[in-house]
């Protein structure tokens, strides 16, 4: 290969550059058989379902196929009332991309009656300054439901 004559680099600027880059992702997430049953029960019957481990007897919401504690395969579905106790919460007061709603809003962990785990969801129907740990909560379902966790609009105090 005939080498090119080397050019001087002195004429190339050195001014610092700041770049703005956009990273895109558009993942397709499949919910699986277990997730499908959970979401279709919410959509079709406004019912929250848990799944029970045959070995350690824990009831998980949202449901999953294998127990994370003892790895047993779970298949026993448990119908829950949907009511529960607020275990913890946070109030969001500033906007970030991809938030479920405009701030200020609150979301928390609700331990449903009959379940061993909590479910994270939005809290509404209450003054944000009056939310307290230990409040009894119940779900408020949307009129138009599509099979999404957001078919539950929020949990409100009973």
């Amino acid at each position, binding site marked *: 290969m005939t080498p090119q004559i*080397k050019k001087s680099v002195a004429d190339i600027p050195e001014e610092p550059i700041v770049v703005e880059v956009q990273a*895109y992702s558009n993942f397709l997430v499949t919910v699986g058989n277990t997730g499908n049953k959970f979401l279709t029960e919410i959509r079709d019957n406004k019912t929250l379902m848990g799944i029970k481990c045959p070995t350690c007897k824990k009831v998980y919401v949202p449901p999953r196929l294998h127990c994370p504690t003892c790895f047993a395969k779970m298949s026993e579905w448990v119908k829950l009332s949907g009511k529960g106790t607020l275990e913890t919460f946070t109030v969001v007061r500033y906007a970030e991309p991809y938030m479920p709603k405009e701030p200020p809003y609150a979301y928390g962990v609700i331990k449903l009656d009959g379940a061993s785990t909590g479910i994270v969801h939005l809290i509404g129907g209450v003054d944000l300054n009056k939310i307290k740990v230990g409040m009894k909560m119940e779900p408020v379902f949307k009129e138009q439901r599509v099979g999404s966790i957001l078919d539950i609009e929020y949990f409100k105090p009973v």
Partner: protein
Amino acid sequence: MVLKKEEPQDPAVAFRYPRVITYKHSLGYQSKFAHALKMGRIIATKCPVDGRCTVPPRIVCPMHHVRQTEWVDQGQRGKLISAFKINFPMFDSRTGDLKTWEYPIVAIELEGSARMDGWCAETDTSKLKTGMILEAIWRPPEERKGRVDDILYWKPVE
């Protein structure tokens, strides 16, 4: 070529999760490299120990861990080190699309001794031989952004 297949439309089966993250970062030392790319030139930093050049440029030699601040023009041509072609559909990480890949990816040793990779215009891999000379084909000057993909592809020199 992008391959399209039917997607489930029921969110209780699968759902899309589109996200766009915008972030800014300063190129710092590599700003000179970006300016050179906009000018249609490839430059690299040279190690004072063994004289090897690095593309993209680095301020510290990855082999000898010494500061390398001498900039060297790498010319417009290089010799083919290796090439590979993806012969099955694979996801494009930039778009999430499943597509076929017509063009091979080549690793090139530039005239200034730096190595870089890029797309190759020759789709028949039987015509690619190590040591053959390739030259850079650039985007039009007004479309360059100071990124490595300002080099559209590498073309064998007749």
